[in-house]
């Protein structure tokens, strides 16, 4: 066992655990044998399926009868040559950038106000409310917006009652609903990311700036904004990557014009039963995401760009990497 390193070595150890004494070495071997379970699970049910994804993307689809093993590039050729799929990829990138910007614009003032609340109780309550929805399935959160934006049960009724419209108008499904829904489900991640970096700023720095005569706006631009930039950038990248991979929101709140790559991929696999083509588009999406994550990770710092790193804060109330 590693913990008994300081003790005299009784016998040359077996295996590669250089200096452990005999009894500990025996349990060490036993412990390492146990590793076969998690490592085996990860290799068989994680690494191998990912390899299969790449392999199947080169298979040939047989309509109505699964696939046949082959080595063909036709799935990739189809994905790149048809305008439809290129447009969907571009649209997915666009709406993901838009969502990152919107979440930043809404999340920044919110979080700034939240961390400056004097009472720890209200701060904790505000944070809990803000990120509480994070765990809730996308299906329920999207459905909530489809109700809220519907003509029959949503704000359309309120607008009609107020006399703003002649009769109730619905906004879901459609572009407005998709953008609002995506913002709703990913805003908590942005708030979490900003919370960490804004909380770390000492309020006395702002006071010092104000006491030296700087007006609030100047203080914000020269003191708060530069210090919170890493958290803002990490949050934006996180929201961008998560939006790129989301299936549920655009498929519930969007019309076909708002379908993103994950919707197109799932439709190919589940409705068209064309797994090889779905696999090829998955590989393309994964490559695009990998490149973007790598590029932005280098800009922002890899450890911070982490889809769920923020959720740790929800659990233990503060520690982050």
């Amino acid at each position: 066992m590693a913990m008994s390193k300081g003790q005299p070595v009784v016998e040359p150890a077996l295996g590669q655990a250089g200096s452990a004494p005999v009894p500990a070495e025996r349990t060490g071997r036993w412990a390492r044998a146990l590793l076969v379970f998690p490592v085996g699970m990860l290799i068989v049910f994680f690494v191998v399926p990912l390899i299969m994804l790449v392999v199947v993307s080169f298979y040939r689809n047989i309509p109505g009868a699964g696939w046949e093993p082959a080595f063909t590039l036709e799935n990739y050729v189809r994905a790149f040559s048809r305008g439809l799929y290129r447009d969907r990829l571009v649209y997915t990138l666009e709406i993901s950038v838009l969502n990152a910007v919107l979440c930043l614009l809404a999340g920044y003032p919110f979080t700034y106000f939240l961390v400056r609340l004097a009472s720890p109780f209200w701060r904790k309550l505000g944070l809990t409310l803000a990120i509480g929805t994070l765990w809730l399935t996308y299906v329920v959160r999207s459905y909530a917006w489809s109700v809220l934006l519907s003509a029959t049960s949503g704000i359309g009724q309120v607008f009609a009652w107020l006399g703003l419209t002649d009769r109730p108008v619905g906004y879901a499904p459609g572009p407005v609903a998709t953008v609002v829904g995506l913002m709703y489900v990913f805003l908590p991640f942005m708030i979490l990311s900003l919370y960490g970096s804004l909380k770390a700023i000492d309020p006395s720095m702002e006071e010092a700036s104000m006491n030296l005569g700087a007006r609030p706006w100047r203080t914000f631009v020269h003191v708060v904004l530069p210090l919170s930039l890493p958290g803002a950038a990490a949050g934006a990248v996180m929201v961008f990557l998560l939006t790129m991979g989301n299936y549920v929101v655009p498929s519930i709140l969007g019309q076909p014009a708002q379908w993103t790559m994950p919707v197109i991929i799932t439709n190919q696999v589940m409705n068209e039963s064309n797994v090889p083509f779905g696999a090829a588009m998955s590989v393309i999406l994964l490559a695009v995401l990998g490149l973007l994550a790598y590029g932005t990770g280098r800009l922002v710092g890899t450890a911070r760009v982490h889809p769920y790193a923020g959720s740790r804060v929800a659990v233990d109330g503060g520690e982050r990497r």
Partner: protein
Amino acid sequence: MTGRGVRYRDPIVWSVRLAFWLVLVFLAVPLLILAAVSFHPGRFMTFPPQGFSWRWYETLFTSSQWLEAIRNSLVVALASSLVATAMALILALVLDRYPVRFGELWRRLGMLPLFLPPVIMGVAYVSFFYAIGFSGRIENLIIAHAVFNAPFPLMLISTGLKKVGKELEESAMNLGARPGVVLRTVTLPLIRADVFAGALLAFILSLNEYIVAFLVAGFTVVTLPIELFASLRYSYSPVIAAASVVFILGTAALVAVADRLAGGLWD
């Protein structure tokens, strides 16, 4: 404080305050409207509302279709969170306490599912399970969710082990306790809260997961999110809102427990 007077008259400060309340309303209103729809007696929610009724909840808990979905969800979440926690516990404990070849590689591999978009993992499972001729089983979904959610208990248990340190274990060893006894009477009790919190998170995530479940076994094993999604495709019914409210309350309660368990350790 000289800045005080300036702060409260400043229009920027006021707009930040306004933005705060707007975002809070934005976050809360969709969930409140679901509650309103679920208690509204009519098929459609009108404004102003007309009364209060439990009828949609009655329909929910007497419909075999919804009960089946709830049952499937609970089975998958329970089994997958147990497997995920067992994986995470062994991985975290062995890698932290014993020298292991490629230890860092295994830890990173254990965390990697977190970084992959679920839809891509779902298609990977479709390819894999179809290729080995074992499609659409509930076991597939349990395995997929276990591997996909294992990073959360892994993260919590690893942090717990680091915080606990090795001093107490070393004391026990020096007093003559055998490694098995140390594990049972010292290490495991110290990290118990992290293990439970991790298991609970894996359970919550499995319960709420849609796309991997849909791709892996969507046509044969209908979980609650799948049933919800399917019902809103084919009908508009306040039962969906009632199911959502049950879902929201259940998730909130579980998250609160997990939060308490994980947070309690650091108090």
